[in-house]
């Protein structure tokens, strides 16, 4: 045990720290390398003696990106992500509220079924989904990329659990004052559900914004409308 700047440093911890920091560095290398490679001239990316820093900073690659209709792609992504998030929020909030507050026949069975969809991988539903979209004449449109994500089991689950822990008296008071079920939901329950809304919105937006290789492939299949 030695003292550095008045703090006790154990030899074991110091060794652990060195190893930990080395692994951290290794973990960062691919990321840093990717970013620096984007500034390298074409011939320098794969060389016998790899240079971490480019010999000269080249902006060519970025110019090439902007020569393509990048703005159009960006707008496509934004429409899908924003539209999908709003739709997911609406469906999840209403469904979650219904599961938490109303009693109807087979409620628990329906909820269990909904949660069961979480373990079904997207790849399994891909083909039925494609046939469904093609039956609706929606292949190659952005709507086809938004609709499948509108029903989010995770979203419904988050909203249901939130509303279950929500004081019922507030809604009862609104009902006493003559508010309808919809009115209570939109004016009382939803404005107070901000944590749940944020959680579902962030999850939904990230999921929809990241390039979804499969769904993009699926929807572009046989029709090129979404790319133009």
């Amino acid at each position, binding site marked *: 045990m030695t003292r550095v700047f008045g703090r006790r440093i154990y030899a074991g911890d110091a060794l652990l720290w060195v190893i930990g920091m080395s692994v951290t560095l290794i973990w960062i290398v691919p990321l840093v*390398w990717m970013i620096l490679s984007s500034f390298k001239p074409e011939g320098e990316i794969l060389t016998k003696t790899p240079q971490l820093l480019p010999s000269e900073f080249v902006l060519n690659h970025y110019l090439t990106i902007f020569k393509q209709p990048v703005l159009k792609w960006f707008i496509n992504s934004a429409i899908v992500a924003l539209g999908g998030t709003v739709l997911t929020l609406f469906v999840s909030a209403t469904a979650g509220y219904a599961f938490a507050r109303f009693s109807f026949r087979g409620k628990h069975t329906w909820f269990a079924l909904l949660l069961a969809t979480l373990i079904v991988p997207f790849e399994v539903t891909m083909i039925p989904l494609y046939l469904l979209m093609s039956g609706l004449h929606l292949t190659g449109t952005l709507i086809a990329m938004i609709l499948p994500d509108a029903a989010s089991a995770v979203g419904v689950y988050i909203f249901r659990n939130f509303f279950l822990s929500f004081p019922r008296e507030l809604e009862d008071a609104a009902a006493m004052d003559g508010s309808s079920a919809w009115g209570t939901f939109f004016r009382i329950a939803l404005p107070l559900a901000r944590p749940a809304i944020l959680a579902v919105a962030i999850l939904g937006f990230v999921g929809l914004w990241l390039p979804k290789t499969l769904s993009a492939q699926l929807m572009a299949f046989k029709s090129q409308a979404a790319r133009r």
Partner: protein
Amino acid sequence: MDSLKNTFYYVIIVVPAQVVLGLVFALYINKRLFGHEISRMAFFAPFVLSVSVVGIVWGWILETRYGLLNLSLGAIGLPSNTPWLSNINWVMIGIGLSSLWWHVGISMVLILSGLQNIPVELREAAVIDGANPWQVLRHVTLPLLRPVAVLVFILALIDAMKVFGQPWFMTNGGPAGASTTVVYDLYLNFQSTKMGYASAIGFLLLVIILIIALIRQIALKEDLT
């Protein structure tokens, strides 16, 4: 079915490594040494990348002659001619390395949350009773971590069963079909409009994943008793 065999091979390589490395990283971060916030961010950062980025970057890194990995191995005197992506026996290990880099962060975060739920008093009591750090880990921390570990293991397993993007971007299922996984096979048949065969693969995958989920249910039930 070759694609099923390839996928199981990949699962056996990746899943244990991802869980064990996630546990090691989480234990390191939980020691809260100087700069552990930086390490935590670095380990988790790759997880937010999309599979296309991971596939392209690791395609460069694993290149046999000029790839960063082989050049680095050569620089420290290790064999530097491993054909990571162009040999039937190595291709899944190469893809596995990229997956490990990409997904170990989520295992780490889940295990870390499990670690932080273990009351400090339990470990303190063990130390007072004279247990050394290894005994505390082996007889206090790890047993209490079991429910989280089962969850992490099952999530990693389901994830690995569904591997698709990495072979798609890095190897196109090759060489000689050695990295054609179940979902990649499904995709190929879907592309050549053999819908019936593709649907059958999809259903088979669902059955396998349902069985895994069922095993998890049983494993966790056992924990309650």
